[in-house]
């Protein structure tokens, strides 16, 4: 049947890469994004005309590429970026999704939002100013969210005479500080976003720089291996029971592979029930597949008629997540309503939602100094801290550092239904993380 379609799609070489950008307008972030889009021919003529017209109406003496990304009326009126904007461009090798996040302090939650799905984070540093608090904050959030690749763009090199010493000094300073963070791969690129140096093409004005241009790096950085292909985890989203004449006894479990690889014939266990069975087949609309791996959406059929429902997790008998009613987690607080000590929230983890009670706030982190304040009594909007949570029912979790899909959760306010926090599961002793 249509199975060949699926293989044709899989065989296409273009790979999807998501990256988050952080920095303020002053750092030239919007200019850099505008430059990437413009030079990769992803800005369309009518968009450019629009920006030119809007620039001259505002009295700007140049084409203000920031106007391209500021989509809301309030943003244009106030000249600030309020919310995460998503931008898209592609090159023959890759399709890119940019989560463009505002840089102001009050919008930390936007950076967390953009960073949560990113393969790579791009942080801008003004070469004249060096590593400021804000750059450190962005790098910290990138490491907290376990973005595997960090690119520090030292921008406005034209304003420091393309000076190598300035670049080296900033790199040294940043590297020293970043040693405290958990970022496996940090790359530094000296650029001038305004003039395009080292953005798409290597600049001739910085012959001392031997690395690739920013775009070349984005196109070649290896992201496929960042996925967890070891720990097989399949949160069940939806039970497929057609009950039609054609598929009378069909029972399948639909979901997206969170991590690891599933194959037909694999021994599996369903949690939290603990029932063991085997994968009979892995199916899709386009026909059966031999293997399923992240982030494929598939349907599993199991050999035995075991009781499985939404919120259950299928994994391998000898590699299980931790099944627990107690969580230690780092959370970023998103709401104007502060964290309620001993408050009760809904917690959504993979496809399961239970209730969580705050047992303790262990400490609050100062995102600028990384200092832990153990005397803290609450968390307000944009603050980050470590919590102990007690759950109304078991969740099957992994440590976030090992598994972003099964180590992450959100907290939802029961009365307002707002998403009030993003959480990352930590293991064990208090000294950890």
């Amino acid at each position, binding site marked *: 049947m249509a199975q060949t379609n699926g293989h044709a799609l899989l065989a296409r070489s273009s790979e999807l890469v998501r990256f988050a950008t952080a920095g303020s307008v002053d750092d030239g972030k919007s200019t850099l994004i505008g430059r990437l889009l413009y030079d990769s021919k992803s800005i369309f003529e009518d968009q450019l005309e629009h920006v030119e017209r809007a620039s001259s109406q505002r009295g700007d003496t140049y084409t203000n590429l920031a106007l391209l990304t500021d989509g809301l009326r309030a943003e244009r009126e106030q000249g600030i970026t309020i919310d995460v904007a998503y931008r898209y461009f592609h090159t023959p090798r890759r399709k890119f999704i940019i989560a463009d996040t505002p840089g102001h302090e009050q919008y930390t939650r936007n950076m*967390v939002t953009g960073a949560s799905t990113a393969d790579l984070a791009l942080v801008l540093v003004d070469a004249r100013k060096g590593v400021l608090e804000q750059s450190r904050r962005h790098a910290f959030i990138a490491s907290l969210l376990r973005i595997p690749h960090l690119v520090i763009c030292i921008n406005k090199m034209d304003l420091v005479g393309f000076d190598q010493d300035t670049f080296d000094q900033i790199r040294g300073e940043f590297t020293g500080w970043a040693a405290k963070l958990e970022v496996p791969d940090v790359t530094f690129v000296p650029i001038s976003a305004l003039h395009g140096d080292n953005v798409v093409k290597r600049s001739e004005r910085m012959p001392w720089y031997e690395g690739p241009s920013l775009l070349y790096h984005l196109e070649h950085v290896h992201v496929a291996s960042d996925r967890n292909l070891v720990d097989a985890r399949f949160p069940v989203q939806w039970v497929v029971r057609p009950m039609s004449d054609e598929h009378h006894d069909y029972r399948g479990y639909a979901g997206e592979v969170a991590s690891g690889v599933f194959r037909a014939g694999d021994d599996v266990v369903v949690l939290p029930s603990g029932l063991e069975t085997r994968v009979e087949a892995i199916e899709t609309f386009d026909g059966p597949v031999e293997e399923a791996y992240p982030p*494929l959406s598939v349907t599993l059929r199991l050999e035995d008629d075991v009781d499985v429902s939404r919120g259950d997790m299928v994994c391998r008998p000898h590699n299980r997540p931790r099944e627990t009613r107690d969580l230690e987690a780092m959370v970023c607080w998103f709401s104007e309503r502060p964290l309620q000590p001993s408050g009760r929230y809904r917690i959504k983890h993979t496809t399961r939602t239970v209730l969580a009670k705050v047992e303790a706030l262990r400490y609050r982190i100062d995102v600028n100094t990384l200092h832990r304040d153990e005397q803290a009594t609450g968390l307000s909007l944009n603050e980050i801290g470590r919590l102990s949570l007690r759950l109304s029912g078991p969740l099957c979790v992994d440590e976030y550092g090992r598994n972003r899909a099964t180590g992450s959760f*959100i907290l939802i306010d029961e009365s307002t239904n707002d998403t009030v926090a993003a959480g990352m599961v930590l293991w064990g002793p208090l000294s950890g993380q």
Partner: protein
Amino acid sequence: MSYEISHLRALESEAIHVIREVAAELERGVVLFSGGKDSAVLLHLARKAFWPGALPFPVMHVDTGHNFPEVIAYRDEVVAQTGARLIVASVQDSIDSGRVVEERGPRASRNRLQSVTLLDAIEEHGFKAAFGGARRDEERARAKERILSFRDDFGQWDPKAQRPEVWNLYNGFVKPGEHVRVFPLSNWTELDVWQYVREERIPLPTIYLAHMRDVFRRDGMLYAVSPFIELLDGEVPFEESVRFRTVGDMSCTGAVRSDAATLEDVVTEIAATRITERGETRADDRVSEAAMEDRKKEGYF
């Protein structure tokens, strides 16, 4: 095996995940279907999400009455294939019952009136989740919208108070009277949609491919001659080989000159184009700087 995955397969998988998640967490969903390419892809993905089960929602068309006849024929055929129930919410009914007042004059359009018809239908049927085919690359306000986009009691979108959307954990909790709009194609571009249509051989209305048609020129765009638009002085119809990049009302959707008669030709043409689909073909976005944002706040798609 390297476990590589193409960008189209990754986008497909993300969309299916969103559709299943919403189906599981929210009662009474509905797929909004205009007959355009994006809603065709959306419906295709929804079928994939529940296969071999049937689509667990009805399909709803907000019908302005100013449709391309080819699109209505296509709608009826495709929806019948899915086995889903088709609901038609009619702007004409909203006009007849006095809920909205028809615009007048040669530039009149029913585009904006649709929001009222849509919200009334959502309320009438008690829908909690309305799936749409909107994409973030279409327009600046949409670039800021969540995949699950919360609507209050009045159907309004508040861009400054959106629920943060982290990882793939969507919050679909709503109170009585509220609903969410769901945009599984948020991360797709126009080119992605066309590549996917080609790969998957998804049927589309014939007006997407080049054909000969009587058109006239207005404000730099080509419009189809139809009973729904009055010609202004000096506007002279002529025959041209055209195709449509978007499908909306006949009164506000422009055609582009094109010889792209196959899906392959269209993909080639889209890959080379230097103008956005809305900039080239949609009069409804030309009203003001924030035309889309303003309509969305009122409850538009």
